[in-house]
């Protein structure tokens, strides 16, 4: 098996171990995908479905990084790996959080979501 990120061989680990890590990753990914589909087709309340699917997705991302991309926080490259992961998380938070911020504001003003917050404020100001 090669050391993470170097292409240098690590003699103490046999190719078998590498194969095993890939196989585990594949199996875990498969189970998590199947779980997400099962949740989608199940009778659970929608909120639960969304939570389960998101969780499965997050776990699967971690499995990919660990088992397929050999991300490793204890080797010689750990600092670089950590930086890259933090940078990715940062950008993903910006994108996902921004979407949440924008779309919930828009849907509030479209009087979706049942509660019409956006309506209430102008009405109140009219009363003054």
């Amino acid at each position, binding site marked *: 098996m090669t050391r993470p990120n170097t292409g240098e061989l690590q003699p103490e680990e046999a190719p078998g171990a590498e194969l095993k890590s890939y196989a585990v990753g594949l199996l875990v990914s498969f189970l998590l995908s199947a779980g997400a589909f099962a949740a989608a087709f199940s009778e659970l309340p929608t909120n639960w479905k969304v939570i389960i699917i998101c969780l499965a997705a997050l776990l699967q991302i971690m499995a990919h990084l660990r088992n397929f991309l050999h991300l490793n926080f204890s080797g010689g490259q750990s600092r670089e790996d950590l930086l890259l992961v933090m940078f990715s998380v940062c950008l993903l938070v910006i*994108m996902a959080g*921004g*979407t949440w911020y924008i779309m919930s504001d828009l849907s509030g003003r479209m009087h979706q979501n049942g509660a019409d917050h956006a309506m209430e404020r102008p009405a109140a100001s009219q009363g003054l």
Partner: protein
Amino acid sequence: MSGQSSPTFGNLDWEVTPYTDLLEHVNSSTIIGAGAASVLVLGAFAGIALLTYMRWWKPLFRDWLTSADAKKIGIMYIALALVMMARGIIEGLVMRAHQATALGALDKAETGLVAPDHFAQLFSTHGTIMIFFVAMPLLIGLINFVLPQQLGARDMAFPVLNQVSLGLTAAGAGLVMVSLLIGDFGTGGWTMYPPYTGLDYSPGEGVDYWLWAILISGVGSTLTGMNFAVTIFKSRAPGMHLMRMPLFCWTSLCVAIMLIYAMPALTVSSAMLALDRYAGFHFFTNASGGNMMNYANIFWMFGHPEVYILILPAFGVFSEISSTYSGKRLYGYTSLVIASMSIAVVSFMVWLHHFFTMGQSAGVNIAFGIATMIIGIPTGVKIYDWMATMWRGRVRITAPVVYLVGFFLLFVIGGLSGIILANPSIDYQVHNTTFLVAHFHNVIIPGVLYGMLAGVHYWFPKAFGFRLDESWGRRTALLFVGGFIFTFMPLYVLGLMGLPRRSPTFQDPDFLPWMYIASFGAVLMLAALFCLLWTFWKSYRHRMSLSVPGGDPWNGSSLEWSTPAPVPEWTFASIPKVQARGDWGETKRAGDPWRAPDSYADIEMPANTAHGLIIAGMAFALGFAMVWHIWWLAALSFFAITAALIWRGMRVIEPRIIPARQVEEEDRRFREYVAGATPITRADEESERNRGVPDCSEFAG
């Protein structure tokens, strides 16, 4: 298109070409449509005939299409971009000519050169082509050519993946080209907003052409981003610390990161729209819970970083040429690095400014408006750095410097109009007018286009061994500057007068004078294009007197100037050991820069392969089949791609070994040439005496 879909040919039939329209009604619009299709067909035939007549098929296949050499791949990207640019500029001229003849009245049908629907196809293809198949291939090509050489690497980290990326980009470009002859292109602009582009309002094949061109080339660009990033992180020469990299490498790193994180957003929004159109989903439809506003949201999550993907390499080029052509060290290296990185990160936080008017609350708009204005700061820092670099330098007014000065003057105007637009309340007034069209052309043309053309001019001798003619280069640059001013400054005025963008007609005769000026400018732009081609042709004819075998025609300071021109396949006879920032310059200052390496070793190069070509062909077939609903072909090509990937993954592939003897022989010959040539001073740079061997004693920067 008939209502029935055949199992063999899908929705294809004989009625899809523009010639059918021409037979039905003869007018200027159908004539232009059929004319464009004919140019495509005749151009293709002429190309085939030329290749056959010159017996170039074999060299083309052996030396270029199957090559995994990043330098050649870069050159092919740029060639693709120039072909597409010809179409894009001509379309721009046709649109300008149309609007100059489109004054109408509310109670009459639209008049003008082309029909309204044809006009809509023109701005949609023009925008799509210019962004995805001109600007992107130009910068990806330039980075491919320059980056490994500047880093002191032999090649990209993944040479064959690089070839596949090029193939996917070309397949996407091919789809847009084929839409000239077979069927129509979409009419939703380069952004293709639903619900208009959903099945209900755009049932034909047009939007699908866009979708598949974008999906396929988008995968290619994502892979390119990964390739660049890995190359920069893993393949630098020994001693090339990050803070020793030339600035072009830094901006390439920013581009790589942004490609990796931004392109997937485009793939997602396009894939969701494709699901709506092909599989009955309701992501963006009016009915059944669709939310078309989310398309704008996801699209611009890609779209804004994209504009900085386009501009950052140009910033890199300008950093290199401002320093080289004024014979000075780059001023404020660290500040330029920090500014580039800040731009890359902040550009992910501003995407909402493209839809200020979509209806969100003022607070949301303000947050993104402020973030947008912040980007102006690092950009301003850069402009000052470049000006300070040139300050009191020995500036030579070469063609790249003309581009640079044009960029200074015009880009600042474009940037300022951007800051104006970043204010949501102003944006409400001018959004969707030609003021916006003027703004983005004002940053794209003086920024991206000038930057890339300047870069092509600057590195051309490295690629082909001879310089480009400076007089014609300067003329081209001046025409692009003048053409830009005449074409787009009037659009600011028209926008403030209230002309909506993308309008095939208007009723106010006061618009006309400005329209005429803009059309004149578009003619100048076309002239600039011809001038550019003429520069290439003329320089090719005089290649003997322009040749610079010494390889350092501009007295540069980064590693790529230490090798012969044209640069050999293996780039460096032995990988340099980097001691300083601007290592080649430091070596020159220390004297005797052309010392031969102590020993030569065998060099391993990636073997030629048709892998990229096969994937490109299959990807094109997949896209075309999906557009026309030819399901069997789609399935076939999809499995063929998968099979090709697996097959290559299973095989052991031997690299090609270049024996040390051959390397040594060529390297010796180069060093003897340099030793025998007369070094020239900067004042002689443009004369025939410039053989690429500069006078090192003059090296101050």
